[in-house]
């Protein structure tokens, strides 16, 4: 082997496997090349041992040495390989020198990138021109061969071949085919990008063909982006000029003239940019092109067409933009720095590792590749920090910086759209005519501009403006259409929704937010039905919807809330498509999990779910993950304590409540034992009210001018179902007490409880203050309670029952003891006989007043043997047996131990009680928050309670069980009362 090639092989040893192809060509043809040059006496005129300063001169010499066209091509190709290898080796050598000498790493990267781009562009352009001289068909008509991709990218060369459109193309196609074969063999493959996108059978596309394709809606806006970067490689400059003037010019902003295509192009770019920003980062690989460079390209191109800048060289474009828009200098500079880093990262990867876009970061092979890359980019191990880690951190920081800058710059582009875009002006001004029809027409027009025009934030803003005319105008317009036309319009929106799901769902959920059935709600439902039907035929739309769910779960959750069970089932079926991308597949799986929760849950639970997802959208991802929900809830609780803003403290505490509520409800849905829900709910209400009291006490203390009572003088007790740990009660029976008669103490306590009440109401809970109607306040003093019960009023037995069953959630044992000594003992225990007689009378009166319910319906609380009778019976027992424990009010077993003669009755009541509460929980979570149980709606509760394992209809068996047990409980109550 010639000495120059031996040195070349040694020099390029650090290069990655992509160099093998070029080395193979040198091995195969190198000696022939040397031989021919020696024979021509021109060996000394050609640079085999280093980069040629003027490649064209060397190529001319090489071409002249070939004896026939085929040999000439082989020699040209081989010489290209020699030069390409030298260039790449030299680029890395120079980078190493620059990094050693210059502390500013980014400056060295910029030089490396710029130099590599310039040299590669020059080399490949020169080579292509040389090859064309050999392969050009003599009958080939005029054409322009353009490079349309990023000039410095070596993995392939994106080209566009544009001809006049009216001649015989076969000769041009033949020419280009032979050129492509040579490039594939020796250089970088040509990617016949434009013809492929347009759908041309050969290599050529005419100007008119291209213009027609761009107006057909088949093409992505990326085609325009690529054409804007077109540079003439060879051929007719006039055709290139026509491309600029007749095709790409209309995507630039015109101060005067129609800017519709300019606007739609920007909408396409912004939509794409947002998609890139929302892309979940992969955990096991990096991809600088997809994760950062495409987004940077899109945004800089947007500004290019806004400002009318002609340069396509990205580095210069940045500088021009910064000069043109100094107010955007900071984000543009940030974007440029990110661009330099990512381009360098990508280029170095291509030179040293492989030319694939994905670079694995896990595994021993990846570790070695990354080590090589990090070293080449100037990273060294520093103490415990490995060079590779440092590099990857900088990589992700570059992505973050690009993302931050992109968000700012997108706002600028959006503002430009609002100020100058014809569609935007129409969409945001007062509606004229039938908005539903007009908007459909405009959206169809937009979709004919490009495939995937998705950015419609201005439209969404117009629809969501409070008191704005758009929603009503749309709903009225839609409702007023004849049925056929309405169906067609709904189909148009459904198609649009499959293409632009974020914008579509935003508007649809605004329409559906009018909860009371009316034109707006009906319009939303009809359009949603069409959308779901369309979705089932388009896996692509399912992927898009899954991505929207990933990043806007609150929006999708609002959409799900508007669907009836048939719609939810339809959506579940439609989303059952194979998805290869693991991140998108995971998003789809989570969407399906959310749909199932909607299918299984009652409106009561969905209300809480809606609240949670609006404040904390990410929660919807964790619905089936008990541990994560618990962690999030406890995190909110801890954060509520630390937050400096009182309002935010209360908000975070409310979040804690909602998320814990949801967690417990999800457990019930999964069929967990009701015991867990009861314990969970008990803890939840205690923690919530206790913490809420703290916040409200502190606030009231801050605002108080006079005396503030000690905290332990105030006690808050829950009565009723919550006291007895019945989960999913939608109201609180509250007894709020203050141990003081001083007016200022009472007033202070009142203020605290008033504040608490406001917050409790925000959770959708109604708090009833048991003593309020007697004392005229939320809070009663112990003296007032004692005085009240000392009287003869028979109607107070309900309050006595409540006090007897109360559970302390705020306050000390001290106030508990005082309540016991001053109220419970004298007016309940010591008066147990009359209390028992009064309660027994109550039970009797209720039984007589009870009207049997229709077949298949049972009132679980009020019917004989129901929860109320059980509560009242146990209250009698507690009064007689002097059992009062506000920390554990539901001590049925305790009652049986103290009154062993009646223990079997109490046990029986206890078992029925547990059954009724479990059924009640399951019913509230899956059907409705009501104590009226319908047999026809017991399927889901039956599943939760384990009735599916058995013969016969599960719901039917559960209902029979319910009736039987309540009858048994009624019998127990009768027996207890008869012996009372």
């Amino acid at each position, binding site marked *: 082997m010639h000495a120059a090639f031996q040195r070349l092989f040694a020099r390029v040893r650090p290069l*990655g*496997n*992509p160099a*093998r*192809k070029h080395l*193979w*060509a040198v091995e195969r043809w190198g000696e022939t090349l040397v031989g021919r040059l020696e024979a021509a006496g021109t060996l000394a005129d050609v640079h085999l041992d280093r980069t040629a300063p003027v490649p064209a001169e060397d190529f001319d010499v090489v071409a002249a040495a070939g004896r026939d066209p085929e040999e000439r091509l082989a020699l040209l190709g081989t010489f290209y390989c020699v030069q390409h290898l030298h260039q790449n080796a030299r680029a890395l050598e120079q980078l190493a020198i620059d990094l050693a000498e210059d502390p500013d790493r980014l400056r060295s990267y910029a030089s490396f990138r710029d130099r590599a781009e310039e040299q590669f562009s020059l080399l490949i352009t020169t080579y292509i021109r040389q090859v064309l001289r050999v392969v050009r068909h003599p009958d080939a008509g005029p054409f322009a061969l353009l490079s349309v991709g990023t000039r410095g990218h070596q993995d392939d060369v994106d080209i566009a071949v544009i001809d006049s459109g009216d001649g015989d193309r*076969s000769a041009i*196609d*033949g020419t280009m*085919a*032979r050129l*492509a*074969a040579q490039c*594939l*063999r020796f250089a970088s*493959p040509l*990617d*016949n990008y434009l013809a*492929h*996108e347009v759908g*041309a*059978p*050969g*290599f050529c596309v005419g100007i008119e063909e291209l213009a027609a394709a761009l107006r057909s809606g088949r093409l*992505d806006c990326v085609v325009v982006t690529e054409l804007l970067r077109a540079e003439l490689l060879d051929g007719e400059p006039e055709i290139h000029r026509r491309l600029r003037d007749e095709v790409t010019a209309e995507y630039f902003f015109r101060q005067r003239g129609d800017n519709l295509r300019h606007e739609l192009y920007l909408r396409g770019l912004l939509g794409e940019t947002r*998609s890139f920003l929302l*892309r979940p980062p992969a955990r096991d690989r990096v991809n600088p092109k*997809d994760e950062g460079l495409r987004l940077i390209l899109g945004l800089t191109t947007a500004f290019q067409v806004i400002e009318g800048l002609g340069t396509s060289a990205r580095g210069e474009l940045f500088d021009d933009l910064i000069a043109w828009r100094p107010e955007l200098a900071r984000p543009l500079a940030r974007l440029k720095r990110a661009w330099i880093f990512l381009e360098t990262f990508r280029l170095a990867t291509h030179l*040293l*590792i*492989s*030319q*694939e876009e*994905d*670079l*694995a970061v896990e*595994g*021993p*092979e*990846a570790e*070695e*590749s990354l080590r*090589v890359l990090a070293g080449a980019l100037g990273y060294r191990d520093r103490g415990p920090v490995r060079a590779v880690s440092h590099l990857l951190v900088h990589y992700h920081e570059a992505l973050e910086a690009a993302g931050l800058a992109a968000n700012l710059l997108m706002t600028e582009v959006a503002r430009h759209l609002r100020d100058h875009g014809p569609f935007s002006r129409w969409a945001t001004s007062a509606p004229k005519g039938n908005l539903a029809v007009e908007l459909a027409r405009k959206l169809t027009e937009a979709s004919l501009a490009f*495939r*995937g025009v998705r950015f419609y934030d201005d439209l969404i803003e117009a629809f969501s403006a409070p008191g704005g005319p758009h929603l009503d105008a749309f709903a009225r317009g839609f409702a007023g259409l004849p049925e056929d036309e309405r169906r067609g319009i709904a189909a148009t929106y459904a198609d649009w929704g499959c293409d632009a799901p974020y914008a579509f769902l935003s508007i649809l959920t605004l329409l559906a937010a009018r909860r009371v059935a009316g034109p707006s709600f009906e319009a939303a439902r009809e359009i949603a039905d069409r959308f779901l039907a369309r979705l089932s035929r388009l*896996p*692509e739309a399912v*992927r*898009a919807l899954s*991505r929207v769910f990933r990043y806007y779960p609150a929006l999708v959750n609002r959409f799900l809330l508007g669907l009836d069970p048939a719609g939810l089932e339809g959506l579940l079926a439609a989303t059952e*498509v*194979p*998805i*290869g*991308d693991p991140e*998108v597949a995971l998003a789809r799986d989570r969407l399906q999990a959310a749909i199932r929760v909607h299918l299984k849950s009652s409106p009561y639970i969905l209300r809480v779910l809606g609240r949670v997802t609006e404040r904390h959208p990410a929660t919807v991802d964790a619905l089936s993950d008990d541990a994560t929900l618990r962690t999030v809830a406890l995190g909110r609780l801890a954060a509520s304590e630390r937050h400096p803003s009182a309002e935010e403290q209360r908000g975070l505490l409310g979040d804690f409540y909602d998320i814990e509520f949801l967690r417990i409800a999800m457990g019930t849905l999964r069929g967990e034992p009701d015991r867990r829900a009861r314990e969970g709910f008990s803890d939840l209400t205690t923690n919530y009210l206790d913490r809420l009291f703290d916040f409200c006490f502190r606030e009231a203390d801050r605002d108080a001018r006079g005396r503030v009572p000690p905290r332990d003088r105030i006690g808050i007790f829950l009565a009723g179902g919550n006291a007895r740990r019945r989960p999913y009660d939608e109201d609180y029976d509250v007894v709020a007490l203050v141990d003081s008669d001083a007016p200022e103490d009472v007033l202070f306590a009142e203020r605290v409880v008033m504040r608490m009440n406001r917050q409790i109401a925000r959770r959708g809970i109604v708090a009833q203050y048991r003593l309020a109607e007697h004392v005229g306040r939320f809070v009663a003093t112990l003296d007032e309670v004692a005085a009240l019960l000392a009287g003869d009023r028979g109607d107070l037995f309900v309050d006595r029952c409540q006090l007897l069953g109360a559970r302390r959630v705020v306050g000390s044992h001290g106030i508990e003891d005082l309540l016991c000594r001053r109220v419970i003992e004298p007016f309940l225990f010591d008066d147990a006989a009359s209390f028992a007689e009064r309660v027994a009378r109550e039970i009797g009166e209720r039984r007589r007043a009870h009207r049997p319910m229709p077949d298949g319906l049972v009132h679980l609380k009020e019917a004989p043997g129901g929860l109320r009778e059980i509560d009242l019976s146990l209250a009698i027992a507690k009064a007689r047996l002097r059992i009062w424990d506000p920390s554990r009010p539901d001590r049925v077993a305790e009652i049986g131990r103290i009154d062993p003669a009646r223990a079997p009755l109490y046990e029986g009541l206890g078992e029925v009680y547990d059954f009724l509460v479990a059924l009640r929980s399951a019913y509230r979570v899956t059907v409705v928050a009501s104590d009226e149980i319908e047999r026809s709606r017991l399927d889901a509760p039956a599943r939760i309670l384990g009735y599916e394992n058995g013969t016969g209809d599960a719901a039917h068996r559960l209902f029979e069980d319910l009736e039987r047990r309540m009858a048994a409980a009624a019998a127990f109550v009768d027996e207890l009362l008869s012996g009372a």
Partner: protein
Amino acid sequence: MSFRYEIRLSGEGGQGLVLAGKILAEAAAIYDDHNATQSQSYGPEARGGASKSDVIISDGEIDYPKAEHIDLLLALTQEALDKYVSDLQPGGTLVVDSDAVERLPEGKWRVVRHPFVRTAREQLGKAVVANIVALGLIVRLSRAVNEDSAEQAILARVPKGTEDLNRRAYRLGLDLGGEAAAAR
């Protein structure tokens, strides 16, 4: 008479089919001294959606670079199969991933089914080389490129340090192709 062989590799974006297409084209053009073209396209969402890579191999000129009469179709997903099978010529070869493709359309093709992704994961420890396994099978079945040429082209395309893994994946694919050919 010159031969022209059209291969379409199709599946979901991110399955390495563009790489596989480039390898086939380079194997034919660089190491076999044949002519080849390669082109690719993605679904509307560049990441995800049916994507394809077309390779045309010929010992003569390829003036018509668009693949329309496919001799061998690889489909790694149901969606890709449904979208592209209409271009497969009668008498052609259909290769599918049997885990991902449940419904096979009617047609006069030779059908080869294999769970490429599962095989790559279970036998080689990395699902990411499923494309190379499929490539090996295609090379052995089609004989459109020389087996050594394809191996050389693979080694020129994969990251340093992964040559052994990719070689094993390729040779596994060759063996599978041999079994499929013998099973006819």
